[in-house]
């Protein structure tokens, strides 16, 4: 039941993203065909424009256009990139792996650091150290991600010369050299994105952990004679992480948004940089494709979280013993 509701929800999100993509060129000021040929329509006669519109089916009824938009989409046709003069899907596909690597690594790092720090803050609540940490995290959280990246470049690339400031790899390097190259070029973007997304994990975990620490099972864990560290990690943090894991929607969205600006700053050849360049070049079909792909990414990440959540929380596992237990609950 829950699974079905979730699936319906995700289908609705994808439908909304696709429909928005379809609607934007029609709603925006100007000729929809203009969004297919940026700046190349000046001085063309109305007759030629009408031919172009007919060529793209833009003179047909809106519903028919909508349906053909969908059928194209389902065949993997996201239109042609104006800038690259190639299918949008191909262009996006080339860049996808860099963004997945960047976002994936940053997410794991931010999750680990953010939740541990948040748990520690909840545990030490009210102390001067904790106040300092909370304010520190709020300060970091207030800085725009792209600015953090710019400062890191200025300090670690320009001044200290430790890491390269742009790109993901060099074409000439191979094998181990290539890996080392990729790793060193990933350090600063990953650091930036991690710094920019720690705040969310920290605040969520802290709030959740403060709630959990008031739970009777924490008191009982202490009454059993368990050490404080064991109580904090095995009982309090283990339960405090659950709601953090379920709000992955927000987290993935934040990281994807962060990736757009961070990749732009570091000229990192992923989807974010592609989006940035597409804004500059007004490559509308490419932007629409990137938006759709980002939405698919969020939905996929949430699907993954939904499917793996029962591993973390036995209460939602749908097994035989659970069904059996439910009938036995007295009172």
């Amino acid at each position: 039941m829950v699974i079905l509701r979730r699936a319906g929800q995700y289908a609705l999100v994808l439908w909304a993203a696709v429909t928005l993509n379809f609607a934007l060129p029609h709603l925006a000021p100007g000729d929809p065909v203009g969004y297919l040929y940026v700046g190349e329509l000046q001085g063309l006669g109305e007759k030629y424009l009408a031919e172009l519109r007919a060529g793209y089916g833009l003179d047909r009824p809106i519903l028919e256009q909508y349906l053909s938009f969908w059928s194209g989409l389902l065949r993997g046709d996201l239109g042609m990139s104006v800038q690259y003069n190639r299918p949008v899907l191909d262009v996006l596909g080339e860049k996808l792996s860099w963004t997945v690597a960047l976002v994936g690594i940053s997410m794991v790092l931010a999750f680990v650091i953010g939740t541990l720090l948040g748990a520690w803050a909840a545990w030490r609540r009210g102390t001067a150290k904790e106040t300092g940490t909370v304010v520190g995290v709020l300060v970091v959280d207030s800085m725009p991600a792209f600015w953090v990246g710019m400062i890191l470049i200025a300090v670690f690339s320009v001044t200290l010369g430790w890491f390269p400031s742009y790109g993901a790899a060099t074409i000439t390097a191979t094998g181990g050299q290539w890996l080392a190259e990729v790793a060193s070029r990933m350090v600063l973007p990953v650091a930036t994105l991690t710094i920019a997304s720690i705040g969310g994990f920290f605040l969520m975990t802290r709030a959740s952990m403060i709630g959990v620490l008031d739970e009777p099972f924490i008191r009982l864990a202490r009454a059993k004679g368990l050490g404080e560290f064991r109580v904090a990690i095995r009982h309090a943090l283990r339960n405090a992480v659950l709601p953090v894991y379920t709000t992955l929607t927000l987290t993935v969205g934040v990281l994807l948004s962060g990736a757009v600006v961070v990749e732009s700053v570091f000229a990192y050849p992923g989807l974010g940089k592609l989006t940035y360049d597409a804004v500059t070049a007004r490559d509308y079909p490419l932007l629409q494709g990137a938006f759709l792909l980002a939405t698919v990414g969020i939905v996929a990440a949430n699907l993954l979280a939904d499917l793996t959540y029962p591993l973390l929380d036995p209460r939602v596992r749908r097994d035989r013993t659970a069904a059996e237990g439910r009938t036995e609950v007295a009172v």
Partner: protein
Amino acid sequence: MNVNRLTIVGTRTRSQRLALVGAVLLGALLLCAISAPWLAPFDPTERVTRPFAAPSAEHWLGADDVGHDLLSMLIHGARISLFVGIVAAVIATAVGTIVGVVAGYARGVVDTVLMRIVDVVLALPVLPLTIVIGVFAGPGLRTQIMVISAVLWAGLARELRAQVLTLRERDHIQAERAMGAGPGYVLWRHIAPSVVPLVVPQFVLTIKTAVLLEASLAFLGLGDISAASWGSMLSMAHARSAFLTDAWIWWVIPPGVAIAVTVLAFALLGNAIEERSHPILLPAKRSRKKAATAPAPVDPDVDAGAPLVIDDLTVVYGQDGRGATGVGFTVGAGELVALVGESGSGKSTVAAATMGLLPPAAQIVSGAVRVDGRDVAGMSPAELRGLRGNRIALIPQEALSALDPVYTIGSQIDEAVLAHRSCTRAQARERTLELLADVGLEADRVDAYPHQLSGGMRQRVVIAMALANEPDVLVADEPTSGLDVLREAEVLALLDELRVRRSLALLIVTHNLPVVERIADRIAVMKDGELVEIGTAEQVVGSPTHPYTRKLVESAPRLRPSLQEVFS
């Protein structure tokens, strides 16, 4: 409970202090933005010096690549950043509030439809969404405001809907609706006054997000070219390679710091207001009852060698909130003492003190708790850990919330065994199975999770856990709350049997006199932190001396079946 209240008092003054910092910063920023034309030394759009000029007496922050005065650009940038942030937040808050209140109040189909829309908006990637709309709409201030408010209203709507849903079900509002009050009247008269305090912090926090989002959009080139915000300044610095010279120090750092300070100020202020308007986050007022003046009764059967000795114990919460005053009694081996009192009487404080589990704010100011002759208050944390769950064990109330929901009951009992014994996991599991049998649970329950068991079974699990290391003293805190009469009788019979068989010193803490009067050897009654009566069960129930005890005895319903009747 008490920990929670008191630590929040501490946090609250802290967040208020931080809010003051935020308010002062914001005041300065707003003043700066309003008076920008007079404050800025130069026109930010005029070339007033040579490109990349370093800071000087005339140009404090130097100049950009074409010779604009950077300080003037920074001051004027405040206007744009704050304007976009505030206007977008106003729109987002208005839309979010209307949608949230309507959905929460109307419920049904309207609610479902609105909330699906909200869910969809929240699931879309914020920046890619704003970019794709922004590009089609064309860059500029109006576009920025539109796309920012278009993505920020949804979170607010969801938050407010939840609040309105709970408000709507409040008794007095339901009563008014039942008497025929129209939705308009109820919304205006009751919902609006309660919603406004919730909207204000959300509004402030929305400005914060809007300012950050504006910076990102401007950085990506979707800002207004003629009116440069801080984000646009950074965009230009990035595009024109400010890093090639030292220019980045005065070109890149100041706008970023300005954004961070603005966002931080709104965040501090918003968090503080949110804490104030959330009733649950507010410290509850502790009732300060005047201590009775009559001398406390002294336990006539004082046995200094008993496993549990509570000796003239006085516990104080915080500055002057009394937890317990001069409480003294003993529980001998194989004896069952019931500690009876209403909530707030101090009985839970006494129970917590025996376990060394008093909250940090509580302090033992005089007297002692001795378990097996050793004073609990004087123990180091390590000694205390060695004692708890070993020589003295706790049976908590509401076993469902007292068991960790994510582990099997077996592993939780194993954990209690392993905390005090050096043995292998397999040996611990063997002991666990023994314990389950002792409390009448089948061995195959060992891999069940707490939620898979019934209330009576869970209570048996926590009893088994308490027995894990064969303690001398058991403290049972309302051990039968939440159970039906039959389960209650079963659990009490089990406890009674165990204390006899293992000659345990058993202290049952309860507000429910009839539950314990048949099995307790002695009954101690507490009121307002003091022991008002102690004696054998027959004495206390049969001929109570204190008026409060009399009241307790008289008010108790005597319709429960006795244990004998249940099991005959």
